[in-house]
């Protein structure tokens, strides 16, 4: 997954922003406070509790439960990445690096599993 052609301009800007010359202090902007971190952790714990409950609820058997688990897992994933890893507040370059890896790996391996008729 290299850079999509249409993204190159954007990427250039992102990269330029990363040149140490520019005195970006954005690292320290808008981070959550410790109190907020505790609240985020609480939310993560609650979502986990719901996740654990899902397989034991008969009404949620089959595709509904599966999608629910994926959605809940996705929310947890996103919260940790965006807030604990601060990616929400980071330079577009880092977002690009991370998301290209994530999306690329998912796309490739979903195709692999499709060729095995495994999903």
């Amino acid at each position, binding site marked *: *997954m*290299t*850079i*999509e*052609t249409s993204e*190159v*301009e954007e*990427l*250039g800007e992102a*990269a*330029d922003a*990363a*040149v*140490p*010359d520019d005195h970006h202090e954005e690292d320290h902007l808008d981070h959550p406070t410790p109190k907020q971190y505790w609240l985020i952790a609480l939310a993560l714990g609650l979502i986990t509790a719901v996740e654990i409950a899902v397989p034991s609820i008969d009404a949620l058997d089959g595709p509904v439960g599966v999608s629910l688990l994926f959605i809940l897992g996705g929310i947890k994933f996103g919260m940790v990445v965006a807030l604990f890893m601060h990616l929400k507040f980071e330079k577009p*370059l880092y977002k690009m*690096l991370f998301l*290209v*890896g994530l999306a*690329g*790996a998912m796309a*490739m391996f979903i*195709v*692999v599993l*499709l*060729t*095995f*008729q495994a999903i």
Partner: protein
Amino acid sequence: MTTTAADQQIIRSPGQRGVWAWITTVDHKRIGLLYAVTAAAFFFIGGLEALLVRTQLFGPDLEVLSAAAYNQLFTMHGLTMVFLVVMPIAAAFTNYFLPILIGARDVAFPRLNAFSYWLFLLAGLLIYSSFLLGGAPDGAWVGYAPLSTQLTEVVRMDFWSIGLQLLGVASIASSANFIATVFTMRAPGMTMLRMPVFAWMSLVVAFLLIFSLPSVAIGLFQLFLDRNYGALFYASAAGGDPLLWQHLFWIFGHPEVYVLVLPAMGIVSEVLPTFARKPLFGYPFVVFAGAAIGFVGFGVWSHHMFTSGMGPLAEAGFGVATMIIAVPTGVKIFNWIGTLWGGKIKFNTPMLFSVAFIAMFTIGGLSGVTHAVVPSDTQQHDTYYVVAHFHYVLFGGAIFGYVSGVYYWFPKWTGRMLNETLGKIHFWLALIGFNLTFGPMHILGLNGMPRRTYRYPDGLGWANWNAVATIGAYIILLAFLVFAWNIVRSHFLAKGERVGNDPWDGRTLEWTIASPPPVHNFDEVPVVHSLDDFWHQKYAEDEEGRAVRMPAVTGGALTVDKKTGGEGDDDGEHLDIHMPSPSYYPALSALGIATLGAGLIYLPWGFFAVGIGGAIMLWGLFGWSLEPVTKEH
């Protein structure tokens, strides 16, 4: 080089001599040269293997080599040329020139860079030590399971899996390094779209490696566990599926092809404008096309598996995706022709190789399109037609491109030119030998000759073309002996013509600095105003758009006259540049990891080596993270 004054200021003394200086170097230029020399050595070994293979195939049913020896030699030829020659020669150019081309003094992580080299070298030596330890890997470079997991009591394929794993670690480290370098170390004004195409292609390659190598790493771990710990990933009797390996391998293996060829395309994109005395035609399109080739290259891996039974839907999808690759490739070719169009082309040796690159690569590209036609590919797959195709891409393509780069940048490396006459002899021998060797293989493949066969019977119409191909291979040997002599003569016998900074009237930043460059590359970090900045310092355009030479400007690095050369632009009076100090920890860490890997091959008693290697590795890594980057005064 008159850097004496600067030497006293620069803490890491460039005057260090001897082996120790090379082992501890963290200078990207020295590391680049190490890559180049190592790759050259492996190139001759890999070439020798190819010659033995070709000799065996000279006629029907010859008995030059046994089947066992043949299988080891063709496997090692493939492994060597891909992982120990073309990748490192690309790494050599990238190491040496990427920082200079973007106006940096070194890569982002100089010690990590040294670590990558040493791990690469030790992994290569580890793989080759198998020849002395009971036989080299013999399962082809792709190591298809379950053939590669079949004989667990024979360690040959363990050398292959561990060696590749180590090479992968080295490549991931250097790729992360190059990506960080490009994104954070560019000189002021060097925007992404002012970067030379070679720098762009290096960036694309680094992305390709970083996102493809982990896939084969997992595959190799699985093979290793199957072979040594009874895991069942590829054991069909237990429900394992051998096709999984092919997916994990080719998710890496196909981008790998672009890893091998894109830097060569970058070099050609630097050489053509220089010798046509025109800017690269359609620079943004060439850059986008390179990135697009890399991007689409991740979606076509299964075209190596058209006969394996994935189902028609997947085959159709991957076939069409493969055809799409032809579009950006075509864009590149037409822009290169556009660069030549209306130029004033000087046919020096670097240019000859670049021109041949385009022609040979076009043939390889077009035969590649025929593979995308799935039914047709079921005839061509695993035949000499494929062998012909990828040699047109990787030899007539990549290697010609890198040879072009050697002739082009040799004066920058050594301060001396390579001999033009010898260069032209090399070129014509290489071109003729190459086409004699690989041209007939198209016909052999279409006429039904499978690859990886140690002998063939008479009566199938293959004998004559095989003989021609073998003769061609010896001509290639001759060509590269001339090349080697040219390098020895010019540099080691000091008979090459001495040149200044800018022998070719170049366009990019490397020609603004001394040949060879000082340790810190730039006395003053350049401020870049445009693509081909150096050219625009030297030439303006008149109303018709023709280049007009400007009077030499004074001041800084740009007081360079192409006739006299600016030897010693380094006045270094008040330089206070801190380059990173030499360190033996990267080499030590690499040694530890390689020892650990070697131990894994000979389990269980290899645990001894695993322990020692692990201890050395930890020592190296701790020393590395605790030592200061530059020595205190």
